[in-house]
């Protein structure tokens, strides 16, 4: 499986996909910054990452999940630094032959990201 991971401090731009032949399902998840954080109105959030480890853990999670949910390609982009309300802080795209695997990879990935991947909201502004 093809895994593309990026941790970036600019706006998320997803990579173009090559011509698809054997892909039947593409599931995309975008996590976007909401205007409220802990009942306070905010303009944005600031993220910090332990980048080397984050990339390693993301690879591990995708690899673990692909035993149960084999997929063709997974893209993960996480922003760090300041992210404004309405902007995407995380983007995940999963390609698979069928939707069951694609949905479960994408959902399972997000659950584990929020447990194990060393990225933090370090404040709001």
């Amino acid at each position, binding site marked *: 499986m093809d895994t593309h991971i990026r941790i970036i401090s600019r706006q998320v731009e997803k990579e173009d996909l090559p011509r698809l032949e054997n892909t039947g399902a593409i599931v995309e998840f975008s*996590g976007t910054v909401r205007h409220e954080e802990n009942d306070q109105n905010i303009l944005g959030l600031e*993220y*910090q*990452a*332990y980048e*080397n*480890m*984050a990339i*390693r*853990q993301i690879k591990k999670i995708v690899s673990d999940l692909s035993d149960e949910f084999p997929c063709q390609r997974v893209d993960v982009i*996480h922003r760090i630094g300041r992210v404004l309300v309405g902007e995407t*802080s*995380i983007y995940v795209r999963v390609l698979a032959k069928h939707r069951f695997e694609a949905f479960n990879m994408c959902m399972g990935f*997000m659950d584990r*990201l*929020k*447990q*194990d*991947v*060393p*990225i*933090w*909201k*370090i404040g709001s502004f």
Partner: protein
Amino acid sequence: MRIQLLTFATARDYFGFAEKEVSFNDGESSKVLFAKCKAGFKPEELGWRVALDGEYIEWNEMLDKKANGKDLAVIPPVSGG
């Protein structure tokens, strides 16, 4: 032997450094090394974890020569996404 201590998020404020090279002896644990930087450090109470070279390990695990020159990072509860 030498090891690079790394801190992130709330742990960075707690310890007061982002990275710091320290020496360690064979058999010392991560907990001991970080407690040398901040007396009374109780990572389990805070729910903080520790990672050697990008992989989670136990706080009481004894470090040996394989840790020499590596990064040892304290990982407060993550909140990415």
